[in-house]
């Protein structure tokens, strides 16, 4: 009986326990009897949870443990004495035998494996039966114990509430633990990278050329891992060009929507603007590479500036468009949070609407706007698809917006696409870049949230 089938059986038992417990609790109720503390259904849940959860926990633990027990029993059998002594061969035979016994394969490469199949099959069957029996036993014991506790005074409702809380806590912990796991994996791979390349060279080097000769006789560069050109490209596109587009447009659209437009216009313009945030970035990528980039190159050539098809400007412009909704919705919120009294105060002084906006509302909303911009920057520098499609791969250190630059995210994609060897600094460099990117975006987010929070407090 497979683990999944056992689990299903336990859930079935849980259903039975629920029905039984509910019926028993309902039997307590009636005219002239003391009122139940909890509803019959809550008693049902209490008993059902006791039936299912300990049994499933045991099953999960047993599943881990039984592998080793099976292995030990097979090795202890007389058939195993003929196994080769050498570790690798021995393992190969054993895993083949296991695969045959559990029905994953039909034939084995190694004839010795066939001899071990019955031994394996016996061991698997034996421990599976133990697992099934104990699991069912646990379900009955725990469920039965819970069942005996049913009484009119028993607070099943409160107990179930605690389980619900634990479940919710578990759900939130999973997200947090995953983040920690990601950080840990980035950190360990980065440490391996930094054992090969010095952090000083990585963080301050001006030359990025991660290709390395794989064989000694191969022609190729020896690899240079100065990431400054990548950092510059990222900042140039994400924090400079994109923000030059997104900040004025986002802010002005927020001002128009909060201060000038009629309620009706706002009710359909705002959602339309927010659709921009929902466009898949790969679609922006097409737009940048196929529509904007050629136009930008032609413009550059017309102006007599050295231009390439994949330019920082094209990627930055489109990224700026993508970021507009972030900036505008944060600015919108902050402007709306400025008390009406400020606006009235200024208007009553004889200021026009635009004077009021420029001199009172925007300065008052500035911390919120800055917070929004920082969040937008962190989003922009982590953005991948647009720059992969439109920004280019050459790690140039140039301030010419018509030239090609590359970004951290583009290089990570480059380094990790295709066949990898995880002992080469070329591959590991991706993790170091990822770590830097993660650190920077995390810092930006924290700063942004603090700025916004501080600002909120000012008006409460």
């Amino acid at each position: 009986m497979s683990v999944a089938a056992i689990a299903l059986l336990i859930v079935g038992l849980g259903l039975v326990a629920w029905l039984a417990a509910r019926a028993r609790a309902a039997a307590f109720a009636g005219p002239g009897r003391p009122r139940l503390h909890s509803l019959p259904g809550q008693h049902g849940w209490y008993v059902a949870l006791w039936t299912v959860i300990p049994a499933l926990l045991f099953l999960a633990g047993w599943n881990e443990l039984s592998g080793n027990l099976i292995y030990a029993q097979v090795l202890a059998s007389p058939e195993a004495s003929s196994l080769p002594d050498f570790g690798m061969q021995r393992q190969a035979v054993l895993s083949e035998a296991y695969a045959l016994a559990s029905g994953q394969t039909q034939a084995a490469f190694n004839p010795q494996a066939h001899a071990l199949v019955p031994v394996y099959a016996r061991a698997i069957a034996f421990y599976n039966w133990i697992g099934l029996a104990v699991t069912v036993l646990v379900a009955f014991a725990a469920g039965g114990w819970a069942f005996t506790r049913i009484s009119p005074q028993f607070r099943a409702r409160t107990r179930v509430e605690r389980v619900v809380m634990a479940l919710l806590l578990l759900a939130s912990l999973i997200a947090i633990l995953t983040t920690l796991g990601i950080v840990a994996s980035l950190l360990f791979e980065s440490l391996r990278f930094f054992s090969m390349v010095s952090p000083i060279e990585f963080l301050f080097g001006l030359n990025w050329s991660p290709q390395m000769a794989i064989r000694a006789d191969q022609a190729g560069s020896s690899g240079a891992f100065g990431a400054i050109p990548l950092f510059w490209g990222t900042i140039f596109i994400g924090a400079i060009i994109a923000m030059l587009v997104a900040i004025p447009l986002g802010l002005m659209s927020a001002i128009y929507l909060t201060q000038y437009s009629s309620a009706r216009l706002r009710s359909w313009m705002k959602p339309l603007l927010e659709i921009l945030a929902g466009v898949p970035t790969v679609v922006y990528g097409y737009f940048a590479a196929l529509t904007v980039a050629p136009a930008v190159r032609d413009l550059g050539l017309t102006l007599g500036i050295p231009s390439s098809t994949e330019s920082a400007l094209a990627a930055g412009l489109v990224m700026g468009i993508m970021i507009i909704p972030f900036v505008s919705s944060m600015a919108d919120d902050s402007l709306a949070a400025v008390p009406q009294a400020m606006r009235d105060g200024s208007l009553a002084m004889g200021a026009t609407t635009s004077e009021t906006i420029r001199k009172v509302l925007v300065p008052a909303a500035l911390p919120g706007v800055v917070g929004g911009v920082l969040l937008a920057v962190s989003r922009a520098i982590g953005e991948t698809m647009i720059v992969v499609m439109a920004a280019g791969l050459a790690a140039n250190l140039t301030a010419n917006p018509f030239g090609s630059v590359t970004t951290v995210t583009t290089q990570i994609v480059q380094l990790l696409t295709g066949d990898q060897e995880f002992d080469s600094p070329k591959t590991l460099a991706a993790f170091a870049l990822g770590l830097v990117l993660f650190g920077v975006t995390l810092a930006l987010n924290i700063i942004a949230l603090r700025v916004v929070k501080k600002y909120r407090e000012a008006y409460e």
Partner: protein
Amino acid sequence: MTEMTALSTDGRAATAPAAKMSARNVTVFYGDKKAVDDVSIDVGPEHVTAFIGPSGCGKSTFLRTLNRMNDTIPSARVEGRIELDGEDIYASSMDVVQLRARVGMVFQKPNPFPKSIYENVAYGPRIHGLASGTAELDHIVERSLRRAGLWDEVKDRLSESGTALSGGQQQRLCIARAIAVDPEVILMDEPASALDPIATAKIEELIHELRGNYAIVIVTHNMQQAARVSQRTAFFHLGVLVEYGETTEIFTNPRETRTKDYITGRYG
């Protein structure tokens, strides 16, 4: 006091000679709801007019029509005629920006801008171009703060934020801000209702001092305050101007029973 005697010769006439602002048959709607119904009143020139009445009687709404602050509420609609020095303020030729520079306003809750004390007062003169240089602007700021009775308390910390002051100081800052543009009329919408008694007393004292230079219209639901600071009082009820006359008369010998009932605390 001479002014008061001069006025009392008018008896209970609803108009004073050479009114600064006069309203004729003013009706204000919020959407379909009538908030102010057919009000005709003259205020000014150089004394304090108090609008009293229970909450929701339309006194604040009417006050806001006097410098067209109701324009900022999309559903508000004003009918009738309001004149400032004989000029229709709702005429298309009237520049609302100019109007509000001439008819200033102080709100119920102190609303200093989140700027320095100096910048708060300099705000109006700057946007209206009243000062030609820093020295002149400094002078205007000092004069306004002095008139508002705040100068001695803030002269050493003009660069601190206006929002860091106490509530009463903030309200006097707002008054200084309003008089910095040298208005002719100052509208005050319950200016002391958010303040403690000591700060309230200071505001009332200030109103006394300002009354020689500006026509002041104050909305209040504190009848003692109206009696203390005003020369003329208008009693509003349910959007209608019930009675308007000299403050002493209104409080000692009201003509209308509704006024009497309100003043003696029977409702409101």
